[in-house]
């Protein structure tokens, strides 16, 4: 079997009894063993637990039960998704030793669908970063070129899928943390509409922006995983009631008659070879029957600035609970305040501290209106501009990232240049809309390029239709090393 075998192919074989989930798992564990030391995609591989789960899938198939649409499919989980009894670290020292007593809703759903969890993947600490270099446990490397970053913050999940460690992975996307690494690793990464996938059990970074979503090597696999995790959850107040969009059935519908907008604003500062692929993608959609026009969404140019006020503000509050009192790291000191300070000093990395300070400042009494308040108004403006654009077109197309994968260490000393890696992806999060990055050929360096498709809230069906067309039209990329 090849590392490009699809999740749906595996599930079909396992459900029909043609092959065992255990065999599928062992093949993936072998690949992990071979290449994980070099790539460091995982914080933890749970081989023993995975074998138990795979055997259970096989037992159910033998008993005539249907273990579900993802039967026997290995899946990797970003290590900010809570898993009962298994350490959840967020790649931070401050959560040292913590094992959640509960499992995230999205994880429960993939397990209930028959998927087999193989491990917890590396990330930028608390999902803050664009290269997975902010992990307290060391960086993950890009499977296409280990001298380069896999993107971030879900770099571990993207790399795991790209390297064939698992056909599926879950990540979280706050400002592009699924789409950006998906683009740099050459896999499909989906950020669903805010509220479509329950955030229960996702360790919060910026609550109003965070969203769990799929990684897969094919659009169809991503659609299958999306359908498993989407849907109302009474444990998340922001979860959207009612049935989620059905996307799998839409995959074959093509784009004939769809109106596609080429996003005018996201072209400055984008590498020419990446832009060229985006334009080719637009042409491919046109060739498949869509109409394409250039569409302006002026406010997206303020997205990055608004994001770097709102996300740190929420983070400063969400990360207050890591104070050494109840769980995780504690550094003893003379009194409670000193203990809190010493614990946080030792437990958080530089980027997390930087954002906590930024957010604390943005929310403080004298500056709230000038910073947080204004950022929220920009957010409203962006949503309004998108709404206006979606009166003209059904979908927007743009680059997913300004460049292909960059070398490790290149941007670590310059936070602002690192932040710019997410300039194309951030506006979607501020609006709460859906978006996907689809691999579309390579850049001049031979590294993957991702094209982003953006859709309004609940617009996943048309988004997946277009994604399937792009996938079919994509120029051949460089083979995995």
């Amino acid at each position: 079997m090849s590392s490009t075998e699809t999740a749906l192919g595996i599930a079909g074989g396992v459900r029909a009894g043609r092959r065992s989930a255990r065999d599928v798992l062992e093949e993936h564990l072998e690949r992990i063993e071979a290449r994980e030391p070099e790539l460091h995609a995982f914080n933890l591989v749970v081989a023993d637990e995975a074998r138990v789960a795979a055997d259970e899938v096989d037992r159910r198939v033998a008993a005539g039960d249907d273990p579900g649409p993802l039967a026997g499919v290995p899946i990797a989980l970003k290590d900010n998704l809570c898993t009962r009894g298994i350490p959840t670290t967020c790649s931070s020292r401050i959560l040292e030793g913590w094992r959640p007593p509960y499992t995230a809703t999205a994880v429960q759903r993939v397990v209930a669908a028959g998927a087999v969890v193989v491990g917890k993947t590396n990330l930028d600490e608390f999902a803050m970063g664009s290269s997975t270099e902010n992990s307290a446990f060391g960086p993950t490397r890009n499977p296409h070129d280990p001298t380069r970053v896999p993107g971030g913050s879900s770099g571990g999940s993207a790399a795991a899928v790209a390297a064939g460690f698992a056909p599926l992975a879950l990540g979280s996307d706050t400002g592009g943390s699924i789409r950006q690494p998906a683009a740099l690793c050459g896999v499909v990464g989906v950020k669903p509409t805010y509220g479509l996938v329950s955030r229960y059990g996702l360790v919060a970074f910026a609550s109003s922006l965070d969203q769990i979503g799929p990684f897969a090597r094919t659009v169809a696999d991503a659609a299958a995983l999306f359908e498993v995790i989407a849907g109302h959850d009474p444990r998340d107040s922001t979860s959207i009631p009612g049935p989620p969009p059905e996307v799998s059935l839409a995959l074959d519908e093509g784009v004939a008659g769809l109106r596609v907008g080429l996003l005018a604003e996201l072209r400055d500062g984008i590498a020419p070879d990446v832009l060229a692929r985006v334009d080719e993608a637009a042409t491919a959609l046109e060739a498949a029957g869509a109409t394409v026009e250039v569409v302006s969404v002026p406010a997206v140019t303020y997205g990055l600035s608004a994001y770097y006020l709102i996300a740190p503000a929420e983070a400063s509050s969400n990360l207050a609970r890591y104070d050494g009192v109840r769980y995780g790291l504690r550094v003893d000191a003379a009194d409670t305040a000193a203990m809190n300070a010493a614990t946080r000093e030792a437990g958080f990395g530089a980027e997390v501290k930087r954002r906590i300070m930024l957010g604390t400042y943005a929310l403080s009494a004298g500056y709230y209106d000038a910073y947080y308040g204004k950022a929220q108004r920009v957010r409203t403006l962006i949503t309004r501009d998108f709404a206006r654009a979606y009166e003209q077109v059904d979908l927007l197309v743009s680059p997913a990232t300004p460049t292909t994968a960059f070398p490790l260490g290149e941007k670590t000393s310059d936070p602002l240049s690192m932040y710019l890696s997410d300039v194309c992806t951030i506006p979607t999060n501020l609006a709460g809309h859906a978006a996907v990055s689809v691999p579309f050929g390579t850049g001049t360096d031979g590294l993957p390029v991702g094209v982003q498709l953006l859709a309004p809230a609940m617009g996943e069906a048309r988004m997946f239709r277009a994604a399937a067309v792009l996938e079919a039209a994509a120029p051949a990329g460089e083979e995995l090393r």
Partner: protein
Amino acid sequence: MGDWETVVGLEVHCELATATKLFCGCPNRFGDEPNTNVCPVCLGLPGSLPVLNRQAVELAMRLGAAVHCEVRPSIFHRKNYFYPDMPKDYQVSQYDLPINTDGWLELPSGQRVGIERAHLEEDTGKTTHVGGGGRIHQAAHSLVDYNRAGVPLLEIVGRPDLRSGEQARQYVAELRSILLATGVSDAKMEEGSMRVDANVSVRAAGSDMLGTRCEIKNLNSLRSLGRAIEYEARRQVDLLETGGRVRQETRHWDEEEGRTHTLRSKEEADDYRYFPEPDLVPVDPGSAWIERVREALPVLPAERRTALASAAAVDAATPAVAIAVERDLDGLAVAAIAAGGDPARVLTHVEHDLTDERAAGLDPAALATLTTMEVGSLLTATQAKQVLAELVEHGGDPEAVAAAKGFEAMGADALAAAVEQVIAANPAEWERYRAGDDKERGKLTGFFVGRVMKATQGQADGKAVTALLRGRAASSAD
């Protein structure tokens, strides 16, 4: 303090009488084993999310409607600060858009006290400092119980309309009656389900300016509340009169010493970095739900006082009326008066003789009969008390109870004869009484009443004897 006026505004926190906590399904129950009513949500564990308790919203709306607030759509904010008993290190509370705004309640005196807002928020856990005298400083270690963390609270912020410790006491008593009547809270100050903070300032009488205030935290009884405010106002006046300045600060009331102490200085306001809670959606109860809540409100204390006062034909501000409602005995009183009871005596018994909750089972008709017997001088006040005690304990018919106790009716003629007898036996004292002024008569009344009581084996009515003596002295004066 004639030149000074005290200004008091109260913040009352009450725990809502919900089955479960504000944002999760853990039981909302006082007194359980520490850390047994907890889950990932109320412990604020990473990845957990709040889900708003519908019953808490309903109870908050009920209180809002009962104190004439505008009940409105609202949102939650986060109030950020670090404290060991606060699991998330922020408290989810309502800030600029609370569920209830702009109401008032009426004190028994008829005075209206404004209510600025009554908003929902979650309670924190409870810290016990072990060693070092029980305060956080010098404690060897601290134990935290999170059973209370996430319990729904309603913070009722009153306007600074109160002018004394006594008014403040009445306001809290009134609020407590409303909370109990509406079932919003069990409002037990001793168990902490109702907690009062008082903002106290003083100003020159007649001034419109507010003085610098001090906040006295966690007053846990009505008695402490009144005393603490009186003390604090006096302290501030003394400071100002001796050329000092009141510092804005938080103070603690020491019940044993009878004084307030500095808890922490509040020269600079805390910065809680409020921002809208992104994990919760706005609460919009809708007009239909608000209307249903309003319609289901029970008859409230002020209205009950009016009903009783009107039945007894007394002023609504009569203390006995307020006491009857406070003790939930107004229904009994109204029924007894309706059954022909003497209003004044019914109110007297409610105020002085029926403190026991068991009196709720007393038959109003029996109480009515009892007062009729008193008015007809068939029973003395002392005898009536004894009969009433028996009725409360065992029930029965007041006439039969009086007869069984040997309380023979003492007719007016027999009483007059007994008085004449005592006068005849004590001519010198009588002469002094007859010729004396009010003061002299006052002194001698006791002497004569005592002798008559002795002669009649206690069956005489002291008031009747006094009246007879006065009448006799008046008629023999000429």
